């Protein structure tokens, strides 16, 4: 690499809690059975509350059984339990047997069925954190990562067993690390990262460990558990399972109460508020509101339930952006994005990557120069106000706000769903704007952005799809012009940084030719068809317009187009 990345300080962080038994997630797993029952019961009550009539409840049950049987018929996965068809078959039979029964008898039976269903879901969802398995995984990962790094980089005999490089050289963690560590002691942290790759979960798991934080729980898509390596990692990291195929009310309620109660009990959590990997490569700008909403609800419950005099445990939202030069799944993600934009049809989530592809990727990642950076944002309270290093919420003038006041009406804490829906909207807007602010721009993002926008500008009459089909002879940019534009865009990025609107990697500074070279060398580095290259004449060409568009999208939303 010509442009040296500023050497990471690389100081190890001490764990903030001494032993695993102190960790909230451990506490949760120790009382796993009680917790699962509590979740099921809360979900049961909530569903009943919203369906006061027996008929409504029966309809819901019938719909649930129908959907589950359809799912099993059409879309069964390796991870699905073997006894599933029997369970739902039984429920169905009992439902059918109920027809024509008296109202009183019906209600009791329907309640019983519902409780059975939500209990099953609650068990399905629950994570299974095991301290030993966590420790083992952690050591394995550390050991092998170190072997790979050193074996590939230190060119000496026996290098394989040296410890010159650690993962911290590959992955830069910047931002409010110290604050995050304090907040995790003072209250409950809900980390909300951007999501572009299946690797994100593992990356975040590693980051949390290396920052000395106790394990976080998180909802991982059940599809990931189809891949054995992932399943092992996830289980040992305390992941709970989210099955996106199940859209029925009992499942969704159970899921909601699972994450809400875990947060309420002080388990630090992670969730990806974009819901799924960003298909377009853009920073998320529409968040899933459900989980944010339950975070707000958890905070309100804590204010309501904590006995007077005791300190209320505060919940902190910490936005995090993950920045890559290369996203393993980029070609498929952008394909899905484009076909769904081009013609409005539903695309099921597909994972073409098995364990082998993953190992290949990891090997490439460690042996070649491609770094990842992680930006930790300032902590927010559940309404989206910044918090200081002690966890106090601050207003724009820096005055301390009592978060409790947001839930107060006429002097008392009240439950007002509609109000909390609005708070959710406010919080989600704040998270999106924080993502843009803490995002760390790489040279590879910049060159992709500039190249794509220059092509767009040269062909103003073409829409996106026209542009992506640009004939090959037009897919050349003169280097001199490209260089000038990069300089202009970089200047604007500097100025945005001055205004506190974005960050950039240190490698973005210095000689522009070297920066461009760095960008070209890294953008989508391991793709079969490289999104951006320099040809023999020293001009800029692309081998894959779609992935170029993907990497370009990372800088959409900063109004940089005007510098092209």
């Amino acid at each position, binding site marked *: 690499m010509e442009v040296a990345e500023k050497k990471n300080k690389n100081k190890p962080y001490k764990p903030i809690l001494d032993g695993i038994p102190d960790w909230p997630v451990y506490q949760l797993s120790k009382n796993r059975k009680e917790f699962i029952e509590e979740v099921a019961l809360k979900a049961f009550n909530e569903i009943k509350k919203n369906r006061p009539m027996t008929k409504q409840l029966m309809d819901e049950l019938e719909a649930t059984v129908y959907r589950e049987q359809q799912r099993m018929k059409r879309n069964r996965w390796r991870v699905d339990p073997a006894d599933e068809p029997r369970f739902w078959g039984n429920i169905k039979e009992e439902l059918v047997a109920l027809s024509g029964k008296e109202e009183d008898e019906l209600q009791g039976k329907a309640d019983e069925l519902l409780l059975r269903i939500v209990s099953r879901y609650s068990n399905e969802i629950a994570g299974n954190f095991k301290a030993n398995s966590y420790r083992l995984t952690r050591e394995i990962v550390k050991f092998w990562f170190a072997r790979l790094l050193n074996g590939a980089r230190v060119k000496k005999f026996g290098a394989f067993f040296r410890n010159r490089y650690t993962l911290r050289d590959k992955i830069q963690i910047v931002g409010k690390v110290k604050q995050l560590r304090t907040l995790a002691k003072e209250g409950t942290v809900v980390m909300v990262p951007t999501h572009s790759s299946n690797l994100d979960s593992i990356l975040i798991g590693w980051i949390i460990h290396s920052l000395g934080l106790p394990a976080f729980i998180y909802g991982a898509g059940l599809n990931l558990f189809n891949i054995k390596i992932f399943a092992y990692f996830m289980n040992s990291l305390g992941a709970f399972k989210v099955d996106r195929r199940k859209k029925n009310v009992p499942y969704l309620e159970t899921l909601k109460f699972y994450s809400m109660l875990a947060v309420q009990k002080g388990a630090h959590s992670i969730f990806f508020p974009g819901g799924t990997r960003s298909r377009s490569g853009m920073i998320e700008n529409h968040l899933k509101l459900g989980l944010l909403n339950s975070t707000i609800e958890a905070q309100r419950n804590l204010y309501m339930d904590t006995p007077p005099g005791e300190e209320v445990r505060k919940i902190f939202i910490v936005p995090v952006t993950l920045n890559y030069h290369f996203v393993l799944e980029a070609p498929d993600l952008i394909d899905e994005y484009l076909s769904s934009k081009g013609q409005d049809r539903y695309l099921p989530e597909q994972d073409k990557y098995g364990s082998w592809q993953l190992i290949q990727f990891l090997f490439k990642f460690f042996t070649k120069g491609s770094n990842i950076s992680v930006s930790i944002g300032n902590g927010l309270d559940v*309404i989206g*106000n910044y918090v200081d290093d002690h966890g106090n919420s601050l207003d724009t003038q820096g005055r301390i706000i*009592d978060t409790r*006041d*947001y839930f107060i*009406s*006429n002097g008392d804490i*009240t439950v007002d769903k509609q109000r909390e829906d609005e708070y959710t909207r406010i919080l989600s807007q704040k998270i999106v704007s924080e993502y843009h602010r803490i995002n760390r721009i790489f040279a590879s993002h910049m060159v992709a952005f500039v190249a794509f926008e220059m092509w767009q500008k040269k062909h103003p009459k073409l829409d996106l799809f026209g542009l992506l089909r640009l004939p090959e002879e037009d897919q050349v940019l003169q280097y001199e012009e490209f260089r000038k534009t990069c300089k202009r865009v970089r200047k604007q990025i500097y100025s945005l940084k001055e205004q506190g609107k974005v960050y950039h990697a240190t490698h973005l500074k210095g000689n522009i030719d070297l920066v461009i070279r760095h960008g070209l060398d890294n953008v989508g580095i391991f793709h079969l068809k490289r999104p951006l290259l320099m040809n023999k004449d020293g001009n800029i060409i692309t081998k894959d317009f779609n992935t170029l568009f993907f990497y370009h999208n990372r800088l959409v939303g900063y109004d940089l187009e005007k510098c092209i």
Partner: protein
Amino acid sequence: MTLKSVSDGDKPVGVIGAGNFGTVVANLLARQRKVLLYARDEHAVQRIHDTRENRGHPIHDNVVPTNDLSSLAQQCDVIFPIVPSSHFRLMMKQLSPHIHPYHILIHGTKGFDVKLAPGQTIDMMPTLDRSMVKTISEVIQEESVAVRVGCLAGPNLSRELAAGHPAATVIASHFNEVVTMGKRLLRNEHFQVYGNNDIVGVELAGVLKNIIAIAAGALSGMGYGENAKGLLVSRGIVEMIYLGRALGGNTKAFLGVAGIGDLVTTCNSSLSRNFTIGYRLAQGETLQEILASTDEIAEGINTVKIAKKCADHYKVRAPITSTIYQVLFENMTVKQGLEYLMRYPLNVDIDFLEQ
């Protein structure tokens, strides 16, 4: 909605701004609650206290004038700030330290706030965009921690309200509890209160109608009759909708009480300040002469300036607004302006409903 049915106790309601409309609102609220009415000027507070009268309105017994913002915010959970847009931000800065997230603020100000870099003035800016032009609810949220913000808009001529004639208003807020609270406090047998959740749309409708009101005054001053007014009102609402959409409102808000309702009222009322300005312009007076002879603030003049520059920025066709702008600031006569408008080529009647 709420667990507890709100027994609001005896907490008083605050009104900030003892102008014409502020005083009337205070009197309306006083039918239900004790009201603290804040006036900036200590002498005005004393005078209201002594005479029990303000701006020609007798003051309800439940209204207590005050000069202390901090104690008002402390005593009242619900506050109605009703001060001219040009002073609004400053007032909010003073009020802000005393505001908590549980406060409900429902404003009744029909104007824009313009926030520019130090040293810049509106007249220096060739165009204005939405990052510089704020609605009043946005000012409240920028300057304080208040989130439960609402606005009060509709055909509410102070004198008619004071006389107890039947009327209606809209309370707009993202928060249902704000709408409910506003209804509970204001509604009475002569006064109907509607809810709306598009607060920015309702604010924009209330602000932009002032432009059309000036035009209505001008038509009237020229001695024209009801045909002309029908033309103006219908074309005016179209223009308001286009401008409003460009600035972030929905079409719907403009078709309700705060839009058409308010527009029809203001365009027919010689009581309205904005109407009066248009009328006197048509009679041949200049803007300077008119301003010199009145101490009340007509929001419309500033609104014309801001709306015109926004229309230019967002490339919205706004012939009425830009003509009024020329009449106010560029020495066009009302007669010339009218001739220009009558020759204006666009003649599609309704084109804002498709989409």
